[in-house]
Protein backbone atom coordinates (compact mmCIF):
# COMPACT_ATOMS: atom_id res chain seq x y z
CA UNK A 1 0.00 0.00 0.00
CA UNK A 2 1.75 3.13 -1.14
CA UNK A 3 1.27 6.53 0.44
CA UNK A 4 -0.35 9.17 -1.73
CA UNK A 5 2.80 11.23 -2.21
CA UNK A 6 4.79 8.26 -3.39
CA UNK A 7 2.35 7.62 -6.19
CA UNK A 8 2.84 8.44 -9.85
CA UNK A 9 1.74 11.76 -11.38
CA UNK A 10 -1.96 12.31 -11.99
CA UNK A 11 -3.47 10.28 -14.74
CA UNK A 12 -6.81 10.46 -16.39
CA UNK A 13 -8.94 7.42 -15.97
CA UNK A 14 -9.89 7.83 -19.61
CA UNK A 15 -13.00 5.72 -19.31
CA UNK A 16 -15.97 6.38 -21.47
CA UNK A 17 -18.34 8.89 -19.91
CA UNK A 18 -15.61 10.83 -18.12
CA UNK A 19 -13.50 11.10 -21.29
CA UNK A 20 -15.95 13.79 -22.33
CA UNK A 21 -14.84 15.87 -19.36
CA UNK A 22 -12.16 18.54 -19.78
CA UNK A 23 -8.72 17.45 -18.64
CA UNK A 24 -8.83 19.27 -15.29
CA UNK A 25 -12.10 17.54 -14.42
CA UNK A 26 -10.91 14.06 -15.32
CA UNK A 27 -10.85 11.67 -12.37
CA UNK A 28 -7.41 10.85 -11.05
CA UNK A 29 -6.37 7.39 -10.03
CA UNK A 30 -3.67 8.75 -7.72
CA UNK A 31 -2.75 12.09 -6.18
CA UNK A 32 0.08 14.15 -7.58
CA UNK A 33 3.41 13.31 -6.00
CA UNK A 34 3.94 16.80 -4.52
CA UNK A 35 6.86 17.70 -2.28
CA UNK A 36 5.83 15.49 0.62
CA UNK A 37 5.34 18.56 2.79
CA UNK A 38 1.58 18.19 2.94
CA UNK A 39 1.93 14.62 4.16
CA UNK A 40 4.41 15.78 6.79
CA UNK A 41 2.03 18.51 8.00
CA UNK A 42 -0.89 16.06 8.07
CA UNK A 43 1.10 13.43 9.94
CA UNK A 44 2.33 16.02 12.45
CA UNK A 45 -1.25 17.17 13.05
CA UNK A 46 -2.43 13.59 13.44
CA UNK A 47 0.33 12.87 15.95
CA UNK A 48 -0.60 16.00 17.91
CA UNK A 49 -4.29 15.05 17.94
CA UNK A 50 -3.30 11.53 19.02
CA UNK A 51 -1.24 12.98 21.87
CA UNK A 52 -4.08 15.21 23.05
CA UNK A 53 -6.51 12.28 22.98
CA UNK A 54 -4.03 10.08 24.84
CA UNK A 55 -3.40 12.70 27.55
CA UNK A 56 -7.14 13.36 27.89
CA UNK A 57 -7.90 9.63 28.14
CA UNK A 58 -5.23 8.94 30.77
CA UNK A 59 -6.25 12.04 32.75
CA UNK A 60 -9.90 11.03 32.66
CA UNK A 61 -9.07 7.47 33.66
CA UNK A 62 -7.19 8.72 36.73
CA UNK A 63 -10.08 11.11 37.51
CA UNK A 64 -12.56 8.23 37.29
CA UNK A 65 -10.41 6.08 39.55
CA UNK A 66 -10.42 8.91 42.14
CA UNK A 67 -14.21 9.29 41.79
CA UNK A 68 -14.66 5.53 42.19
CA UNK A 69 -12.56 5.58 45.39
CA UNK A 70 -14.83 8.35 46.66
CA UNK A 71 -17.97 6.40 45.76
CA UNK A 72 -16.63 3.32 47.51
CA UNK A 73 -16.11 5.50 50.60
CA UNK A 74 -19.67 6.84 50.24
CA UNK A 75 -21.15 3.35 50.15
CA UNK A 76 -19.02 2.34 53.14
CA UNK A 77 -20.20 5.46 54.99
CA UNK A 78 -23.88 4.68 54.28
CA UNK A 79 -23.44 1.12 55.60
CA UNK A 80 -21.67 2.30 58.76
CA UNK A 81 -24.20 5.08 59.40
CA UNK A 82 -27.29 2.87 58.94
CA UNK A 83 -25.84 -0.38 60.24
CA UNK A 84 -27.17 -2.18 57.14
CA UNK A 85 -24.72 -4.14 55.01
CA UNK A 86 -26.72 -3.53 51.83
CA UNK A 87 -25.08 -3.42 48.41
CA UNK A 88 -27.92 -2.15 46.19
CA UNK A 89 -27.30 1.52 46.94
CA UNK A 90 -27.89 4.32 44.46
CA UNK A 91 -25.57 7.29 44.32
CA UNK A 92 -26.57 10.62 42.77
CA UNK A 93 -23.53 12.68 41.81
CA UNK A 94 -25.43 15.51 40.14
CA UNK A 95 -28.22 16.45 42.55
CA UNK A 96 -25.95 18.70 44.62
CA UNK A 97 -23.97 19.95 41.63
CA UNK A 98 -22.14 18.06 38.90
CA UNK A 99 -18.41 18.44 39.23
CA UNK A 100 -18.58 18.83 43.02
CA UNK A 101 -17.75 16.02 45.44
CA UNK A 102 -21.18 16.32 47.10
CA UNK A 103 -23.15 13.10 46.74
CA UNK A 104 -26.51 11.68 47.79
CA UNK A 105 -26.51 7.97 48.64
CA UNK A 106 -29.85 6.20 48.99
CA UNK A 107 -30.66 2.69 50.15
CA UNK A 108 -33.46 0.62 51.70
CA UNK A 109 -34.18 0.79 55.42
CA UNK A 110 -34.87 -2.96 55.57
CA UNK A 111 -34.08 -5.96 53.36
CA UNK A 112 -36.01 -5.85 50.08
CA UNK A 113 -35.58 -5.36 46.37
CA UNK A 114 -34.00 -1.99 45.45
CA UNK A 115 -36.36 0.89 46.28
CA UNK A 116 -39.07 -1.54 47.44
CA UNK A 117 -39.12 -0.14 51.01
CA UNK A 118 -38.70 3.26 52.62
CA UNK A 119 -35.30 4.58 51.60
CA UNK A 120 -32.81 6.57 53.58
CA UNK A 121 -30.79 9.10 51.60
CA UNK A 122 -27.62 10.60 53.03
CA UNK A 123 -25.96 13.82 51.92
CA UNK A 124 -22.22 13.18 51.98
CA UNK A 125 -19.21 15.35 51.25
CA UNK A 126 -15.70 16.07 52.45
CA UNK A 127 -12.39 14.23 52.27
CA UNK A 128 -12.05 10.45 52.52
CA UNK A 129 -10.66 9.60 55.96
CA UNK A 130 -10.21 5.98 56.96
CA UNK A 131 -12.27 4.89 53.96
CA UNK A 132 -15.30 7.03 54.76
CA UNK A 133 -16.64 10.59 54.46
CA UNK A 134 -18.78 12.88 56.57
CA UNK A 135 -22.58 12.64 56.56
CA UNK A 136 -23.99 16.18 56.60
CA UNK A 137 -27.68 15.39 56.53
CA UNK A 138 -30.31 13.52 54.60
CA UNK A 139 -33.98 12.59 54.14
CA UNK A 140 -36.34 9.66 53.74
CA UNK A 141 -38.13 8.55 50.60
CA UNK A 142 -41.33 6.57 50.21
CA UNK A 143 -41.03 3.14 48.58
CA UNK A 144 -41.00 2.81 44.77
CA UNK A 145 -40.26 6.47 44.04
CA UNK A 146 -37.36 8.28 42.47
CA UNK A 147 -35.49 10.85 44.52
CA UNK A 148 -37.57 13.94 43.75
CA UNK A 149 -38.36 16.76 46.18
CA UNK A 150 -42.08 16.05 46.40
CA UNK A 151 -41.50 12.52 47.74
CA UNK A 152 -38.91 13.42 50.40
CA UNK A 153 -39.73 13.76 54.08
CA UNK A 154 -37.98 13.88 57.42
CA UNK A 155 -35.08 16.04 56.26
CA UNK A 156 -32.34 16.23 58.87
CA UNK A 157 -28.91 17.76 59.43
CA UNK A 158 -27.46 20.06 56.82
CA UNK A 159 -29.72 18.85 54.03
CA UNK A 160 -29.70 21.58 51.39
CA UNK A 161 -32.32 24.28 51.84
CA UNK A 162 -35.49 23.32 50.02
CA UNK A 163 -34.55 19.67 49.72
CA UNK A 164 -37.79 18.63 51.41
CA UNK A 165 -41.26 20.08 50.82
CA UNK A 166 -42.20 22.45 53.64
Amino acid at each position, binding site marked *: MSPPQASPPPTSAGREPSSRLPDWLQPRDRESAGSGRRRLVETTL*LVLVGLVLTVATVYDLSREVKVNHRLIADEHTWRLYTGHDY*HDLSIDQELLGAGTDHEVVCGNTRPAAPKATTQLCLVIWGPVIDGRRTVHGGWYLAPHVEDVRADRYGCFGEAPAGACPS
Partner: protein
Amino acid sequence: MSERGRARSRSERWVPALGGLLALLMVAAVAEIVLDGALGHSALIPKSPEIAGWLQGIGERLGYRVFLIALLVMTGAYAGLLVLAGHTQAAISKRGAVILIAALQLIVFAGPILISTDVFSYIAYARMGVEHGLNPYLHGPVAIQGDPVFQYVGHDWLHVATAYGPLYTLLSYPLAPLGVVGALWAMKLEALLASGGTLALVWRCARARELDPVLAILIVGANPLYVIYGLGGAHNDLIMMFAMMVAVSLTLVGKVTPRREAAAGAVIVAGALVKATVAVLLPFMVLSRRRGAAIVGALAAMLVAAIIGYGAFGLQGINVVAALNRDAAFVSSDSFATEIAHLLGKPGVFPVDHDLLKAALVLIGLYLAWRTWRGYDWVAASGWLLLAISVTSTWLLAWYILWPLPLAVVSRDRRLLAATLLVQALFIVHQLAPLFAPVQ
Protein backbone atom coordinates in the same frame (compact mmCIF):
# COMPACT_ATOMS: atom_id res chain seq x y z
CA MET B 1 23.32 -22.32 5.56
CA SER B 2 25.08 -19.48 7.36
CA GLU B 3 24.93 -19.11 11.14
CA ARG B 4 22.65 -16.12 10.66
CA GLY B 5 20.37 -18.04 8.34
CA ARG B 6 20.15 -20.94 10.80
CA ALA B 7 19.35 -18.57 13.67
CA ARG B 8 16.62 -16.96 11.59
CA SER B 9 15.23 -20.33 10.61
CA ARG B 10 15.20 -21.41 14.28
CA SER B 11 13.41 -18.23 15.33
CA GLU B 12 10.88 -18.58 12.51
CA ARG B 13 10.01 -22.04 13.77
CA TRP B 14 8.65 -20.35 16.89
CA VAL B 15 6.50 -17.92 14.98
CA PRO B 16 3.57 -20.28 14.19
CA ALA B 17 3.66 -21.61 17.76
CA LEU B 18 3.58 -18.09 19.17
CA GLY B 19 0.83 -17.15 16.73
CA GLY B 20 -1.16 -20.20 17.85
CA LEU B 21 -0.64 -19.32 21.51
CA LEU B 22 -1.87 -15.76 20.97
CA ALA B 23 -4.90 -17.09 19.08
CA LEU B 24 -5.68 -19.46 21.95
CA LEU B 25 -5.43 -16.62 24.45
CA MET B 26 -7.98 -14.64 22.44
CA VAL B 27 -10.38 -17.57 22.32
CA ALA B 28 -9.92 -18.21 26.06
CA ALA B 29 -10.58 -14.55 26.90
CA VAL B 30 -13.79 -14.45 24.85
CA ALA B 31 -14.91 -17.81 26.26
CA GLU B 32 -14.36 -16.51 29.81
CA ILE B 33 -16.54 -13.46 29.15
CA VAL B 34 -19.30 -15.52 27.50
CA LEU B 35 -19.34 -18.35 30.06
CA ASP B 36 -19.34 -15.95 33.00
CA GLY B 37 -21.85 -13.72 31.26
CA ALA B 38 -24.20 -16.67 30.69
CA LEU B 39 -24.96 -16.62 34.42
CA GLY B 40 -26.51 -13.15 34.11
CA HIS B 41 -26.90 -10.93 37.21
CA SER B 42 -24.08 -8.69 36.04
CA ALA B 43 -23.91 -4.99 35.22
CA LEU B 44 -22.21 -6.04 31.96
CA ILE B 45 -25.03 -8.34 30.89
CA PRO B 46 -28.30 -6.55 30.20
CA LYS B 47 -31.49 -8.04 31.56
CA SER B 48 -32.50 -10.55 28.94
CA PRO B 49 -34.64 -13.63 28.35
CA GLU B 50 -32.58 -16.70 29.15
CA ILE B 51 -30.96 -17.60 25.84
CA ALA B 52 -27.64 -18.93 27.10
CA GLY B 53 -28.91 -21.06 29.96
CA TRP B 54 -27.16 -24.16 28.59
CA LEU B 55 -23.83 -22.43 29.19
CA GLN B 56 -24.58 -21.85 32.88
CA GLY B 57 -22.72 -23.74 35.56
CA ILE B 58 -19.28 -23.46 34.00
CA GLY B 59 -18.42 -19.86 34.78
CA GLU B 60 -18.93 -17.47 37.66
CA ARG B 61 -20.87 -14.19 37.73
CA LEU B 62 -19.16 -11.75 35.36
CA GLY B 63 -17.67 -8.87 37.31
CA TYR B 64 -15.92 -5.80 35.96
CA ARG B 65 -12.50 -7.05 37.07
CA VAL B 66 -12.70 -10.36 35.18
CA PHE B 67 -14.27 -8.68 32.17
CA LEU B 68 -11.60 -6.01 31.95
CA ILE B 69 -8.75 -8.49 32.46
CA ALA B 70 -10.19 -10.70 29.71
CA LEU B 71 -10.59 -7.64 27.47
CA LEU B 72 -6.98 -6.63 28.12
CA VAL B 73 -5.71 -10.17 27.48
CA MET B 74 -7.63 -10.34 24.23
CA THR B 75 -6.42 -6.90 23.16
CA GLY B 76 -2.80 -7.73 23.99
CA ALA B 77 -2.97 -11.05 22.12
CA TYR B 78 -4.67 -9.33 19.17
CA ALA B 79 -1.96 -6.69 19.01
CA GLY B 80 0.76 -9.34 19.26
CA LEU B 81 -0.82 -11.45 16.55
CA LEU B 82 -1.16 -8.47 14.20
CA VAL B 83 2.50 -7.53 14.72
CA LEU B 84 3.59 -11.12 14.05
CA ALA B 85 1.30 -11.54 11.05
CA GLY B 86 2.44 -8.19 9.69
CA HIS B 87 6.06 -9.34 9.75
CA THR B 88 5.73 -12.88 8.49
CA GLN B 89 3.00 -14.93 6.89
CA ALA B 90 4.23 -17.88 8.97
CA ALA B 91 2.50 -16.37 12.04
CA ILE B 92 -0.92 -17.57 10.99
CA SER B 93 -2.16 -19.36 7.90
CA LYS B 94 -5.28 -18.50 5.94
CA ARG B 95 -7.00 -21.52 7.47
CA GLY B 96 -5.78 -20.59 10.95
CA ALA B 97 -7.09 -17.04 10.62
CA VAL B 98 -10.49 -18.23 9.40
CA ILE B 99 -10.74 -20.80 12.22
CA LEU B 100 -9.75 -18.20 14.83
CA ILE B 101 -12.28 -15.64 13.60
CA ALA B 102 -15.03 -18.25 13.28
CA ALA B 103 -14.31 -19.54 16.80
CA LEU B 104 -14.39 -16.06 18.34
CA GLN B 105 -17.58 -15.06 16.57
CA LEU B 106 -19.41 -18.36 17.16
CA ILE B 107 -18.58 -18.32 20.87
CA VAL B 108 -20.06 -14.84 21.15
CA PHE B 109 -23.03 -15.85 18.99
CA ALA B 110 -23.82 -18.76 21.31
CA GLY B 111 -23.68 -16.60 24.44
CA PRO B 112 -25.82 -13.92 26.05
CA ILE B 113 -26.22 -10.36 24.81
CA LEU B 114 -23.20 -8.42 26.03
CA ILE B 115 -22.93 -4.85 27.36
CA SER B 116 -25.79 -3.13 25.52
CA THR B 117 -29.60 -3.20 25.53
CA ASP B 118 -29.84 -1.81 21.98
CA VAL B 119 -30.98 -5.10 20.46
CA PHE B 120 -34.07 -5.00 22.68
CA SER B 121 -34.87 -1.56 21.34
CA TYR B 122 -34.62 -2.98 17.79
CA ILE B 123 -37.09 -5.72 18.76
CA ALA B 124 -39.37 -3.27 20.56
CA TYR B 125 -39.59 -0.99 17.50
CA ALA B 126 -40.39 -4.03 15.32
CA ARG B 127 -43.07 -5.24 17.72
CA MET B 128 -44.54 -1.74 17.97
CA GLY B 129 -45.16 -1.75 14.24
CA VAL B 130 -46.21 -5.37 13.74
CA GLU B 131 -47.91 -6.41 16.97
CA HIS B 132 -49.33 -3.08 18.16
CA GLY B 133 -49.89 -1.08 14.98
CA LEU B 134 -47.83 1.84 16.27
CA ASN B 135 -45.39 3.92 14.24
CA PRO B 136 -41.91 3.46 15.82
CA TYR B 137 -40.89 6.86 14.39
CA LEU B 138 -43.54 8.56 16.51
CA HIS B 139 -43.43 6.62 19.77
CA GLY B 140 -40.84 5.23 22.15
CA PRO B 141 -41.06 1.68 23.56
CA VAL B 142 -42.93 3.15 26.53
CA ALA B 143 -45.99 2.99 24.28
CA ILE B 144 -45.98 -0.82 24.53
CA GLN B 145 -45.56 -1.26 28.29
CA GLY B 146 -47.55 -4.49 28.26
CA ASP B 147 -45.38 -6.11 25.62
CA PRO B 148 -42.96 -8.83 26.80
CA VAL B 149 -39.95 -7.00 25.31
CA PHE B 150 -40.62 -3.80 27.25
CA GLN B 151 -38.89 -4.97 30.45
CA TYR B 152 -35.61 -5.48 28.55
CA VAL B 153 -35.39 -2.07 26.84
CA GLY B 154 -32.75 0.25 28.27
CA HIS B 155 -34.13 2.87 30.67
CA ASP B 156 -32.61 5.73 28.65
CA TRP B 157 -34.44 4.69 25.49
CA LEU B 158 -37.95 4.07 26.82
CA HIS B 159 -39.27 7.38 25.55
CA VAL B 160 -37.12 7.60 22.42
CA ALA B 161 -38.54 6.89 18.95
CA THR B 162 -36.32 4.93 16.61
CA ALA B 163 -33.31 6.66 15.08
CA TYR B 164 -32.67 3.87 12.60
CA GLY B 165 -33.45 4.03 8.92
CA PRO B 166 -36.73 2.79 7.43
CA LEU B 167 -35.01 -0.06 5.59
CA TYR B 168 -33.71 -1.48 8.85
CA THR B 169 -37.08 -1.05 10.52
CA LEU B 170 -38.83 -2.85 7.66
CA LEU B 171 -36.17 -5.61 7.70
CA SER B 172 -36.81 -6.11 11.41
CA TYR B 173 -40.61 -6.37 11.01
CA PRO B 174 -40.64 -10.05 9.92
CA LEU B 175 -38.80 -10.91 13.15
CA ALA B 176 -41.46 -9.43 15.43
CA PRO B 177 -43.90 -12.39 15.26
CA LEU B 178 -41.10 -14.75 16.35
CA GLY B 179 -41.51 -13.61 19.95
CA VAL B 180 -38.79 -11.97 22.00
CA VAL B 181 -36.50 -15.00 22.17
CA GLY B 182 -36.97 -15.89 18.50
CA ALA B 183 -36.39 -12.29 17.42
CA LEU B 184 -33.32 -12.08 19.65
CA TRP B 185 -31.74 -15.14 18.02
CA ALA B 186 -32.69 -13.79 14.59
CA MET B 187 -31.00 -10.46 15.39
CA LYS B 188 -27.92 -12.30 16.59
CA LEU B 189 -27.91 -14.37 13.39
CA GLU B 190 -28.32 -11.22 11.27
CA ALA B 191 -25.30 -9.67 12.98
CA LEU B 192 -23.24 -12.85 12.52
CA LEU B 193 -24.13 -13.15 8.83
CA ALA B 194 -23.45 -9.45 8.24
CA SER B 195 -20.08 -9.89 9.91
CA GLY B 196 -19.28 -12.92 7.73
CA GLY B 197 -20.29 -10.97 4.62
CA THR B 198 -18.18 -7.96 5.64
CA LEU B 199 -15.15 -10.17 6.19
CA ALA B 200 -15.59 -11.90 2.82
CA LEU B 201 -15.72 -8.50 1.12
CA VAL B 202 -12.73 -7.24 3.10
CA TRP B 203 -10.83 -10.26 1.79
CA ARG B 204 -11.84 -9.51 -1.84
CA CYS B 205 -11.04 -5.80 -1.57
CA ALA B 206 -7.67 -6.44 0.07
CA ARG B 207 -6.74 -8.85 -2.71
CA ALA B 208 -7.87 -6.39 -5.36
CA ARG B 209 -5.55 -3.79 -3.83
CA GLU B 210 -2.70 -6.29 -3.52
CA LEU B 211 -2.77 -6.22 0.28
CA ASP B 212 -2.44 -9.24 2.55
CA PRO B 213 -6.04 -10.51 2.83
CA VAL B 214 -5.27 -12.75 5.83
CA LEU B 215 -3.98 -9.79 7.82
CA ALA B 216 -6.95 -7.69 6.66
CA ILE B 217 -9.61 -10.14 7.90
CA LEU B 218 -7.68 -10.72 11.13
CA ILE B 219 -7.61 -7.00 11.87
CA VAL B 220 -11.38 -6.74 11.43
CA GLY B 221 -12.74 -10.14 12.40
CA ALA B 222 -10.64 -10.73 15.53
CA ASN B 223 -10.83 -7.14 16.74
CA PRO B 224 -11.82 -7.13 20.45
CA LEU B 225 -14.30 -4.27 20.11
CA TYR B 226 -15.78 -5.83 16.97
CA VAL B 227 -16.21 -9.25 18.60
CA ILE B 228 -17.18 -8.37 22.18
CA TYR B 229 -19.03 -5.08 21.80
CA GLY B 230 -20.22 -5.19 18.17
CA LEU B 231 -21.17 -8.81 17.69
CA GLY B 232 -21.75 -9.37 21.42
CA GLY B 233 -24.48 -6.75 21.37
CA ALA B 234 -25.85 -7.88 17.95
CA HIS B 235 -25.61 -4.26 16.82
CA ASN B 236 -27.11 -3.22 13.51
CA ASP B 237 -23.89 -1.31 12.81
CA LEU B 238 -22.64 -4.65 11.45
CA ILE B 239 -25.39 -4.60 8.82
CA MET B 240 -24.50 -1.02 7.93
CA MET B 241 -20.83 -2.00 7.63
CA PHE B 242 -21.76 -4.91 5.36
CA ALA B 243 -23.61 -2.52 3.03
CA MET B 244 -20.60 -0.19 3.16
CA MET B 245 -18.25 -2.96 2.07
CA VAL B 246 -20.63 -4.11 -0.70
CA ALA B 247 -20.43 -0.58 -2.12
CA VAL B 248 -16.65 -0.43 -1.76
CA SER B 249 -16.14 -3.84 -3.37
CA LEU B 250 -18.34 -2.87 -6.31
CA THR B 251 -15.87 -0.10 -7.12
CA LEU B 252 -12.64 -1.93 -6.25
CA VAL B 253 -13.05 -5.52 -7.37
CA GLY B 254 -13.19 -6.52 -11.03
CA LYS B 255 -14.02 -4.30 -13.98
CA VAL B 256 -15.80 -1.20 -12.80
CA THR B 257 -18.71 -0.47 -15.12
CA PRO B 258 -21.26 2.35 -14.86
CA ARG B 259 -23.80 -0.26 -13.83
CA ARG B 260 -21.62 -1.37 -10.92
CA GLU B 261 -21.05 2.26 -9.92
CA ALA B 262 -24.78 2.89 -10.00
CA ALA B 263 -25.26 -0.20 -7.84
CA ALA B 264 -22.58 1.06 -5.43
CA GLY B 265 -24.38 4.40 -5.08
CA ALA B 266 -27.68 2.60 -4.49
CA VAL B 267 -26.12 0.29 -1.88
CA ILE B 268 -24.70 3.25 0.04
CA VAL B 269 -28.17 4.75 0.17
CA ALA B 270 -29.55 1.37 1.30
CA GLY B 271 -26.89 1.26 4.03
CA ALA B 272 -27.82 4.78 5.09
CA LEU B 273 -31.41 3.59 5.40
CA VAL B 274 -30.17 1.12 7.98
CA LYS B 275 -27.98 3.61 9.81
CA ALA B 276 -27.48 7.06 8.32
CA THR B 277 -23.75 7.42 9.02
CA VAL B 278 -22.66 5.37 6.03
CA ALA B 279 -23.99 8.12 3.73
CA VAL B 280 -20.66 9.92 4.16
CA LEU B 281 -19.15 7.51 1.60
CA LEU B 282 -21.31 8.80 -1.23
CA PRO B 283 -19.77 12.25 -1.83
CA PHE B 284 -16.26 10.82 -1.75
CA MET B 285 -17.14 8.09 -4.21
CA VAL B 286 -18.78 10.59 -6.55
CA LEU B 287 -15.86 13.04 -6.27
CA SER B 288 -13.42 10.27 -7.01
CA ARG B 289 -15.21 8.62 -9.95
CA ARG B 290 -16.73 11.81 -11.41
CA ARG B 291 -19.33 9.94 -13.38
CA GLY B 292 -23.06 10.22 -13.19
CA ALA B 293 -23.70 6.52 -12.64
CA ALA B 294 -23.20 6.56 -8.87
CA ILE B 295 -25.38 9.66 -8.51
CA VAL B 296 -28.10 8.14 -10.69
CA GLY B 297 -27.99 4.91 -8.65
CA ALA B 298 -28.11 6.82 -5.38
CA LEU B 299 -30.98 9.07 -6.53
CA ALA B 300 -32.97 6.09 -7.79
CA ALA B 301 -32.48 4.30 -4.46
CA MET B 302 -33.44 7.46 -2.55
CA LEU B 303 -36.62 7.81 -4.60
CA VAL B 304 -37.65 4.21 -4.01
CA ALA B 305 -36.75 4.48 -0.31
CA ALA B 306 -38.64 7.77 0.07
CA ILE B 307 -41.79 6.26 -1.44
CA ILE B 308 -41.57 3.09 0.68
CA GLY B 309 -40.44 4.94 3.84
CA TYR B 310 -43.18 7.57 3.51
CA GLY B 311 -45.77 4.92 2.72
CA ALA B 312 -44.82 2.82 5.73
CA PHE B 313 -43.96 5.44 8.34
CA GLY B 314 -45.03 8.87 7.08
CA LEU B 315 -42.79 11.92 7.01
CA GLN B 316 -40.94 10.91 10.20
CA GLY B 317 -39.82 7.69 8.51
CA ILE B 318 -37.77 9.56 5.94
CA ASN B 319 -36.62 12.45 8.13
CA VAL B 320 -33.23 10.93 8.92
CA VAL B 321 -31.68 14.33 9.71
CA ALA B 322 -34.03 14.92 12.66
CA ALA B 323 -32.98 11.64 14.28
CA LEU B 324 -29.30 12.43 13.70
CA ASN B 325 -29.66 15.90 15.22
CA ARG B 326 -31.42 14.46 18.25
CA ASP B 327 -28.73 11.83 18.84
CA ALA B 328 -25.92 14.34 18.26
CA ALA B 329 -27.07 16.23 21.35
CA PHE B 330 -26.53 13.21 23.64
CA VAL B 331 -23.38 13.08 25.79
CA SER B 332 -21.60 9.95 26.99
CA SER B 333 -18.81 9.73 29.55
CA ASP B 334 -16.66 7.75 27.10
CA SER B 335 -16.62 10.44 24.42
CA PHE B 336 -13.33 12.18 23.75
CA ALA B 337 -15.16 15.50 23.92
CA THR B 338 -16.12 14.78 27.53
CA GLU B 339 -12.59 13.64 28.37
CA ILE B 340 -11.10 16.83 26.93
CA ALA B 341 -13.70 18.92 28.78
CA HIS B 342 -12.59 17.26 32.03
CA LEU B 343 -8.95 17.85 31.11
CA LEU B 344 -9.76 21.54 30.71
CA GLY B 345 -11.41 21.63 34.14
CA LYS B 346 -14.99 21.75 32.88
CA PRO B 347 -17.67 19.46 34.36
CA GLY B 348 -18.71 18.31 30.90
CA VAL B 349 -19.57 19.30 27.35
CA PHE B 350 -21.43 22.60 26.89
CA PRO B 351 -23.75 23.49 23.96
CA VAL B 352 -21.04 25.68 22.44
CA ASP B 353 -18.75 22.65 22.36
CA HIS B 354 -21.29 20.80 20.21
CA ASP B 355 -21.15 23.66 17.72
CA LEU B 356 -17.35 23.76 17.72
CA LEU B 357 -17.15 20.01 17.16
CA LYS B 358 -19.65 20.18 14.31
CA ALA B 359 -17.62 23.01 12.73
CA ALA B 360 -14.43 20.95 13.06
CA LEU B 361 -16.15 18.00 11.42
CA VAL B 362 -17.33 20.14 8.51
CA LEU B 363 -13.78 21.45 7.99
CA ILE B 364 -12.36 17.94 8.05
CA GLY B 365 -15.00 16.83 5.56
CA LEU B 366 -14.22 19.72 3.21
CA TYR B 367 -10.48 19.06 3.39
CA LEU B 368 -11.00 15.36 2.65
CA ALA B 369 -13.31 16.25 -0.24
CA TRP B 370 -10.63 18.54 -1.69
CA ARG B 371 -8.02 15.78 -1.32
CA THR B 372 -10.32 13.25 -2.95
CA TRP B 373 -10.91 15.63 -5.85
CA ARG B 374 -7.15 15.71 -6.36
CA GLY B 375 -6.91 11.93 -6.48
CA TYR B 376 -6.64 10.84 -2.82
CA ASP B 377 -8.06 7.36 -2.16
CA TRP B 378 -11.81 7.86 -1.64
CA VAL B 379 -11.98 4.77 0.55
CA ALA B 380 -9.39 6.29 2.90
CA ALA B 381 -11.16 9.67 2.85
CA SER B 382 -14.43 7.97 3.83
CA GLY B 383 -12.65 6.10 6.62
CA TRP B 384 -11.06 9.30 7.94
CA LEU B 385 -14.43 11.04 8.06
CA LEU B 386 -16.06 8.10 9.86
CA LEU B 387 -13.20 8.15 12.35
CA ALA B 388 -13.55 11.92 12.75
CA ILE B 389 -17.29 11.51 13.37
CA SER B 390 -16.64 9.07 16.20
CA VAL B 391 -13.83 11.17 17.71
CA THR B 392 -15.83 14.42 17.62
CA SER B 393 -19.09 12.79 18.71
CA THR B 394 -20.21 13.63 22.22
CA TRP B 395 -22.10 10.34 22.25
CA LEU B 396 -19.41 7.72 21.70
CA LEU B 397 -20.09 4.02 21.98
CA ALA B 398 -17.65 1.19 21.27
CA TRP B 399 -19.42 0.09 18.10
CA TYR B 400 -19.10 3.57 16.57
CA ILE B 401 -15.32 3.23 16.39
CA LEU B 402 -15.74 0.04 14.38
CA TRP B 403 -17.15 1.95 11.40
CA PRO B 404 -13.82 2.98 9.82
CA LEU B 405 -12.07 -0.33 10.47
CA PRO B 406 -13.04 -2.30 7.31
CA LEU B 407 -12.19 0.77 5.20
CA ALA B 408 -8.87 1.25 7.00
CA VAL B 409 -7.66 -2.26 6.18
CA VAL B 410 -8.29 -1.82 2.45
CA SER B 411 -7.31 1.84 2.12
CA ARG B 412 -4.11 3.06 0.49
CA ASP B 413 -3.26 5.23 3.50
CA ARG B 414 -1.84 3.11 6.33
CA ARG B 415 -2.08 6.06 8.73
CA LEU B 416 -5.85 5.51 8.82
CA LEU B 417 -5.42 2.00 10.21
CA ALA B 418 -2.93 3.18 12.83
CA ALA B 419 -5.24 6.05 13.87
CA THR B 420 -8.30 3.78 14.05
CA LEU B 421 -6.51 1.20 16.20
CA LEU B 422 -5.13 3.97 18.45
CA VAL B 423 -8.62 5.40 19.02
CA GLN B 424 -9.91 1.91 19.81
CA ALA B 425 -7.03 1.31 22.23
CA LEU B 426 -7.77 4.61 24.00
CA PHE B 427 -11.42 3.64 24.29
CA ILE B 428 -10.39 0.39 25.99
CA VAL B 429 -7.98 2.23 28.32
CA HIS B 430 -10.82 4.54 29.34
CA GLN B 431 -12.90 1.53 30.44
CA LEU B 432 -10.31 0.45 33.01
CA ALA B 433 -11.31 2.54 36.05
CA PRO B 434 -13.25 -0.32 37.73
CA LEU B 435 -10.10 -2.43 37.51
CA PHE B 436 -8.32 -0.03 39.86
CA ALA B 437 -11.30 0.99 41.99
CA PRO B 438 -14.25 -1.41 41.70
CA VAL B 439 -17.50 0.20 42.84
CA GLN B 440 -19.98 -2.51 43.91
